[in-house]
């Protein structure tokens, strides 16, 4: 491919599967401010941002600042690299040429439209010194005409994934020759699979901006790729993949057939080479792909049937040469797809697919020659991660475009490392790989013991309409995000990419964070004995957790200030407390939870009625100081979702003192013991 002078500028160094750009004079691009890169986020960046044509640029349920921060943090937190982004400022600044202010913006302005109007999703605009190769300005424009989200809404582009990719360009990276990395040249709308850096991305930022002292910790593999007659192979992809860690790092051979895989963590690796004949094609990686030889067969060190593993040691190089058969490769995997088992149809494309640790999935790969009858179930395997093919699930077919495909069910080890895996397919005479095509991502995880009443954090049955707190891991974003009411006046059931279902009914969400979700149990589970609870975060779902359902499960809210005192208000609206007891004969307001169904019925997520008819909870009784209290009202607190309000009269015969027990009962279920109120 011929290029203009700018094309020369864009020429890239094809030493690794990650690719760096350099100036026309050969200087590699890098940043002088790498240790403290300061980005400014345009102050219009907010949920619900609309463009000039009335469409959403950022969906209302998104948290764009958190997503951008997460992308900055991901590059900053590579432990072997010294590159670091400062906490961004949010200012009313736009992009202004080469002013050395790095701005990220979604705003619909003429200059943003103009720069991004080449139909890009987002564009990084790095101004460089052609003399030194220093990147002096690196504005990032998200195309205001397109929809972005942080909730993996269908048809939207994931802000964190896009930002992570563009920040890679801002650091000086071009596109990777491997499939799974964030810097790979293809992605999909409606997924966040590329929102996680891979080892290849980290190898790039480590090589360009090494953390002092890290170099002795990492090793390398280098050698040559030649034909059987000794002629060098140019533009061959060489990949090393470590089964124990899921690390995959790649390289592209130079014109003389040499390659060098650098920044490799110590460990055992399989090594193989393949032609850039899809899914990665030479033209995908621009100038670095010029002159690539694609007429040879995929080859493994030690052979595809029983690959030999190489040991990489820190601070040392491991030599390894690969020899390939020249000629048109008979097999080629061009892409694939995966879906959790039992969730419907697969969507295939020439890019990475996600697998979740511990979750079985249906996987398909497609490509030339896969209809070879010598390809059997035992000839398909995964390298680099504990992914196994379930016996008896292998089948053949064709894509809608008529390309041969293979389909099978896989089991992924619960403790699988969160790396990548390569699909290896062997026929009687050849092998093909979908190199680092599968990316293992963390799934939300929790157990029945983690499903608690939000008033007490006690495990037990869930009642219709109850507020629950669920504890686990990977349940949502690192920073907590509060729920909000939707356009219909109900608490939203999707917050920051998190959804939660009970027997398939979506639960309104009060709060989501990686370790905790507060939600309302849908009223629709009334009458059922158990509920299958499933949490999804950014398209990845947990196992279904079976939780018992009760008609009611009352619990009184207690304060989290260390006193353990209940949320009970005296008749004069003061908070009941030691030294501020309720006089006998007055009415106190007890805030509780877990009342079950109400009358008239209330829609899940809807606040209690603010006027008659109030949503009353039937059968509520109260005991104060061991004596029956007259309940004047028991029902949903007006204007609040899921909050039970019990107005009870302190019995004339109740004992006085700072610690008078109070209990709310519905049917046979009572609130937690040892809740003490003050009576005077």
């Amino acid at each position, binding site marked *: 491919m011929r290029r203009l002078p*700018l*094309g020369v*500028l864009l020429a890239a160094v094809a030493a690794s599967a990650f690719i760096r750009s350099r100036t026309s004079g050969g200087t590699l691009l890098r940043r002088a401010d790498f240790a403290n890169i300061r980005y400014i986020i345009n102050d219009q960046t907010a949920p619900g941002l609309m463009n000039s044509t009335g469409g959403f640029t950022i969906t209302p349920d998104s948290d764009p600042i958190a997503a951008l921060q997460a992308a900055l943090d991901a590059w900053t937190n590579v432990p072997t690299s010294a590159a670091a982004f400062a906490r961004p400022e949010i200012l009313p600044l736009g992009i202004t040429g080469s002013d050395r202010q790095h701005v990220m913006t979604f705003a619909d302005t003429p200059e943003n*439209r103009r*720069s991004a109007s*080449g139909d*890009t999703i987002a564009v990084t605009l*790095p101004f460089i010194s052609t003399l030194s190769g220093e990147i002096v300005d690196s504005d990032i424009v998200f195309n205001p005409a*397109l929809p972005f989200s942080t909730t993996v809404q269908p048809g939207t582009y994931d802000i964190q994934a896009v930002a992570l990719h563009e920040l890679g360009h801002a650091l000086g990276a071009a596109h990777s020759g491997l499939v799974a990395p964030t810097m790979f040249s293809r992605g999909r709308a409606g997924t966040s699979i590329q929102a996680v850096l891979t080892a290849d991305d980290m190898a790039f930022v480590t090589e360009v901006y090494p953390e002092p002292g890290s170099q002795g910790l990492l090793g390398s593999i280098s050698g040559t790729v030649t034909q059987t007659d000794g002629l060098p192979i140019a533009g061959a992809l060489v990949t090393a993949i470590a089964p124990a860690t899921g690390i995959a790092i790649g390289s592209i051979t130079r014109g003389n057939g040499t390659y060098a895989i650098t920044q490799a963590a110590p460990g055992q690796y399989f090594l193989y080479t393949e032609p850039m004949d899809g899914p990665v094609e030479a033209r995908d990686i621009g100038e670095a792909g010029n002159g690539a030889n694609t007429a040879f067969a995929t080859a493994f060190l030690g052979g595809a049937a029983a690959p030999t593993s190489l040991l990489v040691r820190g601070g040392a190089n491991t030599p390894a040469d690969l020899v390939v058969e020249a000629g048109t490769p008979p097999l080629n995997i061009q892409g694939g797809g995966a879906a959790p088992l039992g969730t419907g149809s697969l969507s295939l494309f020439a890019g990475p697919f996600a697998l979740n640790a511990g979750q079985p999935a249906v996987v398909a790969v497609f490509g030339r020659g896969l209809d070879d009858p010598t390809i059997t179930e035992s000839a398909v395997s995964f390298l680099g991660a504990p992914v196994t093919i379930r016996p008896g699930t292998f089948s053949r077919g064709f894509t809608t475009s008529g390309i041969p495909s293979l389909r099978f069910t896989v089991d992924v080890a619960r403790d699988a490392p969160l790396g990548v895996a390569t699909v290896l397919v062997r026929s009687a005479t050849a092998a093909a790989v979908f190199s680092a095509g599968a990316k293992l991502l963390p799934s939300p995880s929790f157990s029945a013991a983690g499903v608690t009443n939000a008033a007490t954090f006690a495990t037990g049955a869930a009642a219709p309409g109850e507020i629950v707190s669920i504890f686990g891991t990977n349940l949502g974003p690192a920073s907590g995000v509060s729920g909000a009411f939707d356009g219909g006046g109900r608490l939203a059931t999707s917050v920051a990419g998190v959804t939660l279902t009970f027997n398939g009914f979506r639960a309104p969400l009060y709060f989501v964070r990686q370790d905790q979700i507060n939600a309302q149990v849908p009223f629709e589970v009334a009458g059922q004995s158990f509920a299958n609870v499933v949490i999804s975060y950014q398209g990845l779902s947990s196992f279904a957790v079976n939780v018992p359902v009760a008609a009611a499960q009352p619990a009184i809210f207690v304060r989290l200030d260390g006193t353990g005192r209940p949320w009970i208000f005296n008749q004069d609206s003061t908070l009941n407390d030691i030294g501020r007891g309720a006089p006998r004969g007055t009415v106190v307001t007890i805030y509780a939870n877990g009342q079950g169904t109400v009358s008239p019925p209330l829609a899940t997520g809807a606040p209690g009625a603010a006027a008659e008819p109030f949503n009353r909870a039937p059968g509520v009784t109260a005991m104060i100081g061991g004596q029956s209290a007259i309940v004047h009202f028991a029902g949903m607190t007006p204007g609040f979702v899921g909050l039970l309000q019990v107005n009870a009269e302190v019995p004339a015969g109740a004992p006085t003192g700072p610690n008078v027990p109070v209990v709310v009962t519905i049917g046979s279920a009572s609130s937690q013991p040892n809740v003490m109120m003050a009576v005077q």
Partner: protein
Amino acid sequence: MVPRMSLEEITERSERIVHGRCLRTWMAWDAERQFIWTHAEIQVADTLKGARSATVIVSEIGGIVGDIGLMVEGMPRYQPGEEVVVFLFRVPNGMWRSRGVGQGKYEVRAGRVRADLGGIALVEPAGVTRTAVTSLDGATVDEFKSRLRGLLSARPAGGQR
């Protein structure tokens, strides 16, 4: 990052489609001195869609002026003498750009076409993807233009912009 477009989409959404040869290229700041652009003057041999003219100037963001470079990944570039089929749309400042970044530029070598993706990052949009822009790689330029004319004639009347 660029949404993947189909051949039908770039055909439908382009205001001009021309077959021609690059005469010259140059780089310059825009009037606001915000961005550097690389311009290519294409001598038009055949107009498949849109207004006819002897030449058309195609502009893409990025380039070098003095010792400053604006480096944008994946922008299509042209070389004097290069034979191309380009799918163009006009941006508000009056410049003509290729539709879908590199997806809207086909290079012609020895009479055969090949999509010049030029290292762009393609993202699959939601919905049905129709004919891939690379599906006609290797077709003769006459076969390619015949396919385009077929797509254009199949469009509803009045669809030309």
